[in-house]
């Protein structure tokens, strides 16, 4: 009961929720005006608003099918992996090992990027180096193994190899640059957010 109340409260306090509702209302207004854009223009879908709600629902449900093991592993990691272990394998001095682990976990994952945020957060909470966590997030976003297979079948092996090798190299340099660009206060804020989780 307490949880439900809290979810509702946070939801009602978030600005994006109202932005989303306003946009949704806008779609229904477009429907009422009889404007045919987006899906309404192509697939003979009668209502933009209804189609937005139904695809939101569909995407939400398909995400729910993937995330239970991810959150279970977040819980297990939180309880079983001590801070020292995380620092040793992914912390400031973990070097190539840390990068490799970040890559491996990111590439082996499944699910939308939003499911990676709590995983990244628990890594930070346990003392992983920021650049490693950022690298993990970037790999999750663009170079997951299942996605690579899909990419290679649809667009060819050459394309897949070139784009992903380039992406991985840019991310390797980029994550280190971002880490340098963040001031100690910025980092304190990020790790502070993770600490509360």
């Amino acid at each position, binding site marked *: 009961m307490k949880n439900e109340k*809290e979810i509702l409260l946070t939801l009602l306090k978030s600005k*994006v929720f109202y932005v989303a509702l306003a946009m949704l209302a806008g779609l229904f207004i477009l429907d009422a005006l009889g404007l045919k854009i987006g899906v309404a223009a192509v697939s003979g879908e009668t209502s933009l608003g209804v189609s937005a709600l139904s695809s939101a629902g569909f*995407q939400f449900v398909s995400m729910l099918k993937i995330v239970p093991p991810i959150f279970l592993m977040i819980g297990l990691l939180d*309880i079983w992996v001590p801070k020292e272990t995380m620092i040793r394998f992914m912390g400031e001095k973990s070097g190539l090992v840390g990068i490799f682990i970040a890559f491996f976990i990111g590439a082996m994952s*499944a699910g939308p990027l939003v499911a990676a945020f709590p995983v990244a*957060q628990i890594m930070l909470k346990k003392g992983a180096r920021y650049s490693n966590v950022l690298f993990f997030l*970037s790999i999750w976003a663009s170079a997951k193994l299942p996605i690579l297979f899909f*990419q290679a079948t649809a667009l060819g092996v050459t394309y897949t190899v070139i784009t992903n090798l380039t992406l991985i190299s840019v991310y390797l340099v980029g994550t280190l640059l971002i880490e340098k660009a963040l001031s100690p206060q910025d980092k304190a804020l990020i790790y502070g957010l993770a600490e509360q989780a």
Partner: protein
Amino acid sequence: MDLSTIIIYGIALALLIVSLVKDRGKTKKAIKKGWMAFIKILPVLIPLFLIVGIVLSLVTPAMIKQVMGEESGIIGVLIGMVIGSVAFMPPFVTFPLGAELLSNGAGYPQVAAFMTTLMAVGLVYWSAETKFFGSKAVILRNSMAFIASGIVAFVVWMVM
């Protein structure tokens, strides 16, 4: 359910069993922690998926085909990057669309620009990501992904 999902379920289940064998109390705690992490993310997910639904109903593959088919060159790359940053698409729609764009006459660099931003730059994720890492980190990550997509398009242009 695809193979990767099954594998992840398998790994999680195996870890759960190991944990249960080692320590029941700790396992209970772990499950509770995982559940709490999920509950915490729910209020972020609801508006996020509403926006995803809205974007999906406004930015359709047909529209993208129209816009990306006509422009080539650097302008085409930039258009691809902008649409890719704003749009959201599940992977099973993304790649067939990429193949279709190519057969409709769009070039590899333009398609690469579109698809890499589509995956890595997530304007729909903005508010959710901010709640986890603060806005500066989110701006930097998305900028890096945007620049990376430009570089990918350039490399594809040179090599392919």
